């Protein structure tokens, strides 16, 4: 059987059958300005050998920069066994295991994933993944509206300390369904959201409150007080967390008196390589009472008539292949392979190993902040506790400094100018367990050299 299904003759026959001259004509509806006709630097066709050579040359252009950028995607050491096992033939499919009788291995793995995730987050139930952290927040917002039937406003309070891209994605997906997202500002000196900023909404009909922990600046929020305030005001609490951090800080299931109701996050730090931005996967957990409104499926463990153990997909009646327009999971393509990697990563590290990764990451970030503070014109921007990421303020144009550092092989952080102009020349920096003390000294030295050469703002 040929791999390319359509011969030129077959294409001709199909076009004749529908009365169209050329394939090109089928694209007439799309304005020309939206189409890309040639991809610069991409040749039409090459032999396998030539393409392999070209790709190696291009890859070499990236060099081996030392990366101190986090901002939602984190470089962690991934034990070799993680992807050795993940890419075994038995697991190597991102497709959803609809046929339980043929997918027991994958279902068992998802069951293990859910169990580990609920242990890590102290939440009651975990689904089996969403696209990524940002879409998980959008799904959680829609879920909160379905679940909080006492609230009619569809109003969700979202601190500005939530990742700006998460806020954009959430607005794009859920805004069209008439959710009313209201921004809550952070305290300039602390980089965290004061309870008083939420209290400005006291007495309003609020459907849900989003609480990031750690927030986009790496700072820790007063999660207990905000959670209790939200519950006293009839709102559900949606936590946005970094899973690695939960090994050392209070998990959302334990926040305040009652704990968060829904929790989302990006699963990438758990064994998924940075790979230029994807594929990643979204985590979503919730309390038992909200399980019926949760997008996605659960895997359960049960026994058959003969008492043999088996794994099954549950909550399927709410899915799009059964209930279409009323499904609770219209964007739940299972990021199964990423979940496989995360499960193996967590299993290999164990609770203790994950806590060690988190603790060393925090320690390195503190060392980095202390080291750069010795330089003239560099200061920590906030005085609140942080996890493995923090904001530093420069007395030179941040973009120029970062460019000059990159030329010297150090990706020095993310400029916050576009999203938070009020912070001035501020950059977000991150150090994980992959950075040695030598790497941190090298960062300080390069930043010092660059500051001496870049003119003041």
């Amino acid at each position: 059987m040929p791999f390319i299904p359509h011969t030129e003759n077959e294409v001709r026959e199909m076009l004749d059958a529908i009365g169209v001259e050329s394939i090109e004509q089928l694209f007439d509806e799309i304005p020309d300005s939206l189409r890309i006709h040639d991809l610069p630097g991409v040749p039409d066709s090459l032999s396998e050998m030539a393409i392999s050579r070209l790709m190696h040359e291009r890859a070499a252009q990236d060099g081996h920069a030392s990366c101190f950028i986090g901002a939602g995607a984190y470089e962690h050491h991934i034990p070799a066994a993680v992807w050795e096992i993940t890419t075994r033939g038995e697991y190597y499919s991102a497709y959803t295991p609809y046929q339980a009788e043929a997918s027991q291995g994958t279902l068992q793995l998802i069951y293990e994933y859910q169990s580990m995730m609920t242990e890590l987050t102290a939440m009651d139930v975990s689904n089996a993944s969403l696209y990524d952290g940002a879409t998980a927040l959008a799904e959680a917002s829609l879920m909160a509206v379905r679940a909080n039937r006492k609230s009619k406003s569809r109003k969700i309070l979202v601190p500005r300390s939530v990742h700006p891209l998460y806020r954009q994605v959430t607005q794009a997906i859920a805004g069209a369904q008439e959710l009313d997202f209201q921004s809550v500002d952070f305290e300039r000196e602390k980089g965290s959201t004061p309870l008083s900023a939420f209290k400005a909404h006291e007495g309003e009909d609020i459907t849900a409150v989003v609480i990031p922990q750690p927030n986009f600046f790496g700072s820790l929020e007063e999660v207990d007080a905000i959670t209790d305030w939200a519950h006293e005001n009839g709102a559900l609490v949606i936590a946005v967390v970094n899973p690695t951090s939960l090994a050392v800080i209070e998990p959302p299931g334990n926040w305040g008196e009652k704990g968060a109701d829904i929790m989302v996050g990006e699963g990438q730090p758990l064994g998924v390589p940075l790979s230029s931005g994807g594929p990643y996967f979204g985590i979503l957990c919730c309390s038992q009472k909200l399980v019926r409104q949760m997008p996605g499926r659960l895997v359960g463990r049960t026994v058959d008539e003969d008492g043999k153990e088996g794994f099954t997909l549950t909550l399927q009646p709410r899915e799009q292949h059964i209930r279409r327009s009323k499904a609770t999971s219209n964007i739940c393509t299972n990021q199964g392979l990423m979940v496989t990697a995360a499960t193996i990563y967590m299993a290999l590290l164990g609770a203790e190993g994950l806590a060690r990764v988190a603790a060393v990451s925090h320690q390195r970030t503190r060392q980095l902040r202390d080291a750069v503070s010795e330089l003239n014109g560099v200061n920590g921007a906030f005085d609140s506790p942080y996890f493995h990421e923090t904001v530093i303020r420069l007395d030179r144009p941040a973009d120029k400094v970062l460019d000059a550092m990159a030329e010297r092989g150090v990706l020095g952080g993310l400029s916050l100018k576009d999203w938070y102009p009020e912070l001035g020349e501020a950059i977000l920096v991150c150090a994980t367990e992959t950075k040695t003390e030598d790497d941190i000294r090298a960062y300080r030295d390069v930043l010092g050299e660059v500051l001496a050469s870049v003119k003041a703002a």
Partner: protein
Amino acid sequence: MSKVPAELKYAKSHEWVRVEDDGTITVGISDHAQGALGDLVYVEAPEVGESYGAGDAAAVVESVKAASDIYCPVAGEVVESHESLADEPEHVNEDPYGEGWIFRLRPEKPEDVDGLMDAAAYQKLLEDE
């Protein structure tokens, strides 16, 4: 053979209706409907105070393989909701005309109930299906 109590009214979509002394109506699903759905695992009853038109989806019953809407037989406002079914959905299977009731409604026009099928008509509908 499914039970079709003679004193109740029925909708084509298999809900039953009982008119109470105070003019409200109680709504559930017929013995035939619960049998066709199989073991229920969840019932989402409507919120008290919500108003529905005739034929609007007011509740959801979920079995292992399907989730089905329960339609409001006549227009009205929900005055009571059988919320404990969320934890004990089996009542709908075991006692569809008793403990398995789903919600109570104050009809906009009490005479709308007269437009529903009587037991004989519903029995015939089941035989024809």
